[in-house]
């Protein structure tokens, strides 16, 4: 066992740190600068951050050097997530492009696709979103009802996608649509690269319970896509979708590191808040809870390192990522819920009237989605049961 990083890895970390110090908005790390709320300003802010990342060479670090990436190792990717979590870096607007669509096109895209899209993904000129989920295809991912029909050289898409992050700031969308009915739901799906600046595509933001609008519904009404914008083969889209997901090499690294920091923030909260004149951290009941959460956040991190070691040894990530995903999402809910309880009667104040920092209330509400998005906790449990433990699959219906 060895928890150290090589000098090269530390150099990579230092370089990133230095870059972040220079490039993060003034006051970001201290928490005095807050990301704008209003759509236009927020979009501008995110584009600007994307632009900086691209310029600095921090947008697609795992991309090959010849395409403008850094050819980062797995450990470097982990360090990247660690540093980004440390400063609670702003969200990456083009994450779908840089982390998934780009690498997928590099792997299986046509020359034309590479030429047309790759460069603009990395430099942030074109923002991508993804169209997987549909109102009827939530946990049942493959139950896609959006249809594409061939018409000459084009395909005509009709249907509805939902929960597409940042679609309202995006230019293009990776869409899975049904192109044939074989009766088997994983068959007959095709992957399209769709220009969403067209008449046939409408976007509508979804207001979330934390009063944010980061997700969208997308409506396709005779949207047009040229056949050259099909990724892989027609009717082979399910496999293409899996390839896309396989580029998520570091799993829930960011959330895992974020939770380490969250625990420190919780600790500060208990040091600063008082009940009956005494800091909460002196309350034996609170101390028990804190030590319990400390154990769980450490277990999360150490599990992550153990699974990472397995990934390194095996050359690719195994299903253990589901364990980390499940743990991190459930734990974040419990820690944040506890942090809310600690704030007593003031816990319900939010936004500019929040007792301590509005991020507690925001993050708390946002955490309710953690156990839903990216595969619900129930789905993760099925994956762990079936793929790790070898328990029977659910009845196939």
């Amino acid at each position: 066992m060895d928890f150290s990083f090589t000098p090269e890895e530390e150099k990579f970390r230092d370089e990133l740190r230095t870059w972040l110090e220079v490039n993060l908005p003034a006051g970001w790390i201290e928490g005095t600068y807050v990301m704008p709320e209003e759509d236009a300003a927020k979009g501008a802010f995110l584009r600007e951050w994307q632009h900086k990342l691209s310029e600095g060479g921090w947008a697609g670090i795992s991309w090959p050097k010849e395409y403008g990436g850094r050819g980062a190792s797995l450990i470097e990717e982990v360090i990247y997530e660690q540093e980004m979590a440390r400063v609670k870096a702003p969200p990456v607007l083009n994450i779908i492009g840089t982390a998934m669509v780009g690498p997928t096109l590099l792997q299986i895209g046509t020359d034309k696709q590479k030429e047309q899209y790759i460069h603009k993904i990395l430099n942030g000129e074109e923002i991508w979103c993804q169209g997987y989920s549909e109102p009827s295809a939530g946990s049942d991912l493959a139950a896609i009802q959006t249809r594409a029909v061939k018409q000459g050289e084009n395909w005509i898409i009709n249907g509805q996608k939902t929960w597409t992050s940042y679609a309202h700031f995006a230019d293009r969308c990776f869409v899975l649509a049904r192109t044939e009915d074989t009766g088997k739901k994983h068959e007959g799906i095709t992957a399209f690269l769709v220009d969403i600046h067209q008449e046939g595509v409408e976007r509508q933001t979804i207001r979330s319970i934390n009063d944010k609008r980061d997700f969208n519904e997308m409506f396709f009404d005779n949207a047009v896509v040229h056949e050259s914008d099909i990724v892989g083969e027609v009717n082979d889209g399910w496999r293409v979708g899996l390839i896309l997901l396989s580029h998520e090499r570091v799993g829930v690294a960011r959330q895992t590191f974020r939770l380490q920091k969250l625990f420190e923030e919780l600790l500060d909260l208990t040091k600063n808040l008082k009940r009956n004149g005494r800091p909460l951290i002196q309350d034996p009941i609170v101390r028990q809870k804190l030590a319990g959460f400390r154990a769980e956040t450490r277990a999360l991190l150490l599990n992550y390192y153990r699974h990472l070691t397995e990934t390194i040894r095996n050359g690719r990530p195994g299903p253990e990522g589901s364990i980390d995903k499940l743990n991190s999402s459930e734990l974040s809910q419990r820690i944040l819920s506890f942090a809310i309880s600690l704030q007593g009667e003031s816990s319900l104040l939010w936004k500019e009237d929040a007792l301590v920092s509005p991020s507690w209330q925001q993050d708390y509400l946002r955490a309710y989605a953690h156990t839903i998005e990216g595969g619900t906790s129930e789905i993760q449990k099925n994956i762990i049961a079936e793929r790790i433990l070898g328990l029977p699959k659910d009845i196939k219906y």
Partner: protein
Amino acid sequence: MDFLLNEEQQTFQSSARQLITSKGDLNLSRRYTEGEEGILTELWTELGELGYLGINISEQYGGLGMGALTLVPVLEEIGRAVLPGPYAETMAFATPLLEAYGTPEQKQKYLSEIAAGKRKISIALLEESIDFHPATIQLEAKEVDEGYIVTGKKLLVPNADVADTLIVPVRTGGGHGEYGISLLLVDREDVEWKIERLKNLDETRNVCNVTFDHVHIAKEQLLGTKNIAWGILQEGLVYLNAALCSTMVGGIEKVVEMSTEHGNTRMQFGQPIGRFQAIKHRIVDMKLALEGSRSLTYYAAWAVENRPEEMIEAVSLAKSYTSESYVKVSGDNIQNHGGLGFTWEFDCHLFLKRARALENYLGSPSEHREKVAEELGW
């Protein structure tokens, strides 16, 4: 041995539900949060017309002269629709204290107006420290010939923006102990108070900071005896906590129904998701929380009316159990609904936010558990 609502109480429950449903159910709250504050006045008038605002008010003041237990079905319905307005504070705090300690003039005025749906009352309790013990009550009420001059601030007052009267614990003597605390009835029509409405998660229930700037309160507005109202206040808070439990039970019940409905209708993998034991058994756990909350809460309400010697324990047991259940169950309801539950447009979050608002209101679950321990002499 009989531990269910009686027929009359059941009738109250179903007619209250009918009224609220006919007026739009959860849409009432929605409209209220979107700025249609007039619906509250309208609702209040109708509640008054149907007698729901006079349940526990003596008949001589236009009430029905019943006990706290008969409030239970109506409180449940209020909570079920996450309704705005200080129903619990008015009926379960102001009313019993006025009945017990009000002067004949106060009773005549306040109780009649409450019963008629013309007066909503809230309580302005907290000050700088959000702790709750005698030392924290420092709002100065300086005695002058004709009454009191009140100066200072009360924090996190629920529904202060819509209340016609605030019951305000003030300090008329002593320093940091129980002695010296008095209750004042402060009416909106008589005096000015400055309200700062705070942004809070539960937009169906506004909380405000209230500032009194040399406000003159007539001495007739003293509720109970000067300087020794701490005990009265405590008594009222027990009643109010019992009532809050009933509103939470109503919310929990609705949430269980929502999850059940969704479990029966939402299809995934070709099956209603309520067929998957992960969902199915979670809804059962929610139902168990409902059963326990309702039983403890019924008993607390019954004890308030019939067993003063068990009342404090019964209410604190109910409050700790029910408020934690409500938070848990309303969160589970979001999970059961998946993405839908995370949207503002769908109703799941209204319950979670109300649960959070009531969780620590007038004592956190662990404070109530400690109170049980003390009350039982542990």
